């Protein structure tokens, strides 16, 4: 079952912040975040494992609330290079799900000068 991602799209001015949310109805083992530029393959940003951790990649950070099966990606002081479509991918705790990513619908981020 596909995780629910919100918002669908966000337009930012350079330097502004944004939050992208990802929630699942299943118990999750991990949440992966990817960014995809037009015409390119998704690029891995970070992974959050069961345990409620937070991680950061430059000025992009994320959190994982395992009680709520929700993850949030924080874009801080956005740069033009942050433009793209962000996908969350989730791996659930069921035994036949190891390694299989269920992707959200994506959030299109446009950062303007």
């Amino acid at each position, binding site marked *: 079952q*596909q995780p629910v991602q919100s918002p669908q799209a966000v337009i930012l001015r350079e330097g502004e912040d944004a939050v992208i949310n990802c929630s699942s109805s299943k118990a999750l083992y991990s949440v992966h975040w990817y960014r995809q530029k037009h015409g*390119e*393959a998704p690029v891995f940003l970070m992974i959050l*494992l069961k345990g409620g951790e937070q991680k950061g990649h430059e000025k992009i950070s994320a959190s994982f609330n395992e009680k709520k099966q929700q993850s949030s990606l924080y874009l801080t002081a956005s740069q033009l290079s942050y433009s793209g479509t962000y*996908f969350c991918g989730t791996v659930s705790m069921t035994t036949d799900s190891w390694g299989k*990513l269920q992707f959200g*619908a994506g959030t299109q981020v446009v950062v303007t000068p």
Partner: protein
Amino acid sequence: SAVISQKPSRDICQRGTSLTIQCQVDSQVTMMFWYRQQPGQSLTLIATANQGSEATYESGFVIDKFPISRPNLTFSTLTVSNMSPEDSSIYLCSVVGTGGTEAFFGQGTRLTVV
């Protein structure tokens, strides 16, 4: 980390024909995954390619349409059979790192069916 080479990077094919996509990994991996990304859409898992056994297909995908081979622990192929314009998509192979955490993707095969 894993480095994945996928071929071809793009192709334009006639409807009714078949295309085989190759995925080569620089290290041995237990499972490889094939995803499809239709235009403007998210990624959808097609199947899991298991070495030594038949691939496991997700709901909505069948072996006759997407046969998969996995002859060894570093290589897999996905064939898109009897293509129609609806098969125009990006096809990506993926592997999971040895820690069972990060998923790595090939650069994808952009398929256009005319």
